């Protein structure tokens, strides 16, 4: 019997595993008819998932955590049984801002996140009005990566710049219209902006936080009684993820992803992004590990991944630190389900999460980790005066 499973997605290169599962028969091999539903925004995706219009979703890592905690949205419990991608996003600045950065630090090559960040800080100080930078959602690694990078270079993300959320497909248009001076977004949208001569890519997630979690599969909690359905889906996704990671499959994957029902962007841009070959970014900079779908136990949602997100939410005032919140966050990212359903691969220790500035994340000591940062934003409970 064929089981119908629907998944919501936002058009991005990192929805590749879902597209491959549907298009290349990995879902069918597990008896699943996988239906993909394109969403115009993360808010819309979340609402459709929470209300059962779709069975699961291609979600920003922090979204199911915020949803389960009831932060910034109505409380709705989610579970993450699978990581769909690691890396795959980048920071782009307008060509004008890139020129200002070069002028601010003459003669320096802006080829590391620290160098580029220093130049950005100098360029922003020389401006009379604060710059506006786009990211995709308050609960996204884009928001957290961008904030971390800015703060590490001495720019306070809540005081020295203005951050706005813009859905990924509208990012390039916002840059063209001058609504933003730069952005942090998933591929292919950085490459599309660079190819159009509108912006320059200055840092990638793979440089800022190597092999950090990006998109996850989010399903509604509780799972009781649905494990029979989840098992085949996870097996299909694991097989699809392995296929997506093979360089030899990139041309075919790019051709499928570039179709209008998915991304609607040129296949050559998608293929380059899959291989980490970003326009204007030397291969050594983006690294071979720009975007990972499967290798290195990439698909296992690790407790460290969840705690890192918790730490960022606390650092930027989205959440008050508490033992209860910490425990909840650990319940959302389930490292056991993939092993239970797929059998093999899962049990590998998580690699330490070290940022580009050398600061390592330690989930056992979030307070100690946060104490290292001068730039933070205090949590203010909604409705209270402050």
């Amino acid at each position, binding site marked *: 019997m064929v089981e119908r499973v629907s998944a919501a997605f936002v058009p991005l290169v990192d929805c590749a595993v879902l597209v491959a599962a549907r298009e290349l028969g990995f879902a069918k091999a597990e008896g699943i008819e996988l239906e993909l539903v394109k969403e115009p*925004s993360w808010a819309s995706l979340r609402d459709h998932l929470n209300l059962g219009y779709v069975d699961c979703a291609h979600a920003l890592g922090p979204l199911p955590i915020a949803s389960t905690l009831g932060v910034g949205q*109505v409380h*709705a419990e989610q579970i993450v049984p699978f990581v769909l991608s690691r890396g795959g996003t980048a920071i782009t600045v307008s060509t004008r801002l890139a020129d200002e950065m070069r002028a601010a630090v003459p003669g320096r090559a802006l080829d590391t996140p620290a160098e580029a960040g220093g130049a950005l800080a100098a360029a922003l100080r020389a401006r009379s009005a604060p710059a506006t930078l786009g990211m995709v959602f308050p609960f996204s690694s884009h928001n957290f990566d961008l904030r971390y990078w800015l703060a590490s270079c001495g720019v306070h993300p809540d005081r020295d710049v203005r951050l706005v959320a813009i859905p990924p497909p509208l990012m390039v248009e916002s840059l063209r219209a001058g609504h933003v001076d730069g952005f942090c977004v998933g591929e292919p949208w950085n490459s599309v902006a660079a190819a159009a001569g509108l912006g320059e890519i200055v840092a990638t997630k793979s440089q800022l936080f190597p092999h950090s979690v990006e998109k996850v599969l989010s399903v509604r909690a509780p799972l009781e009684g649905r494990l029979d359905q989840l098992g085949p889906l996870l097996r299909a996704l694991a097989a699809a993820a392995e296929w997506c990671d093979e360089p030899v499959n990139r041309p075919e994957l790019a051709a499928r992803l570039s179709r209008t029902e998915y991304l609607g962007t040129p296949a050559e841009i998608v293929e380059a992004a899959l291989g980490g070959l970003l326009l204007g970014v030397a291969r050594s900079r983006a690294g071979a590990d720009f975007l990972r779908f499967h290798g290195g136990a990439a698909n296992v949602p690790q407790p460290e991944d969840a705690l890192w997100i918790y730490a960022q939410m606390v650092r930027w005032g989205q959440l008050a630190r508490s033992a209860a919140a910490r425990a909840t966050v650990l319940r959302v990212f389930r490292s056991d389900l993939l092993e239970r359903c797929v059998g093999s691969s899962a049990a590998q220790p998580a690699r330490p999460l070290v940022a580009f500035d050398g600061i390592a994340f330690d989930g056992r000591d979030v307070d100690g980790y946060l104490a290292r940062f001068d730039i933070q934003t205090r949590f203010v409970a909604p409705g209270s005066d402050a």
Partner: protein
Amino acid sequence: MTMTQRPLRILLIDANAVRAAILEEGLREAGTEQGGDYGDLAVHHIRDDAKLLPRIAEIDPDVILIDLENPSRDTLEQMFQVSRLARRPIAMFVDKSDSATVQAAIDAGVSAYIVDGLRKERVKSILDVTISRFHAFDRLQTELSQAKFALEERKVVDQAKAILMKQRNLSEEDAYVLLRRTAMNQNRKIADLARSLVAAAALLEPGSRDG
């Protein structure tokens, strides 16, 4: 002015002026008809262009209504998250206490942001009106597109008739009879057959060939 005395402020964010007008009218009607709690509604409408947050802060709405699929929702939610507005609105979905209304809202493509503390029955009455007006707008659009489609069909049938009249030297009535009979024999719609006929005639017309 205390919160209980001031009118309930509803902000509608919609780039579609027609739908906004239909909804605004519905909410005003509901406000005047029901009296009492609902008699005191203030409806504001803005387009979803720049300067959203200052406008929202200025209006200080109790309820914000916006098309579920409007991409500006992500921008809106981020603004609520970082703003230090005392009354921070939150997306109302997945309120399990009234899943029927929520389900109906999603079906109609309505999303709502509600500030904390607003009574459920007030929210429900506003949502009910919004849902019915969104549906009314959809019907209007369907009717409009059907009317447009019917007009287009009539035009192409007229063109096909003209071609037959000229080439087969038929009267208008005979041309139509021939069209209808052929369509019936081929199990096609008259308009579809007419479209093929017009397209074929254009191909065969002298001067239309390439080279």
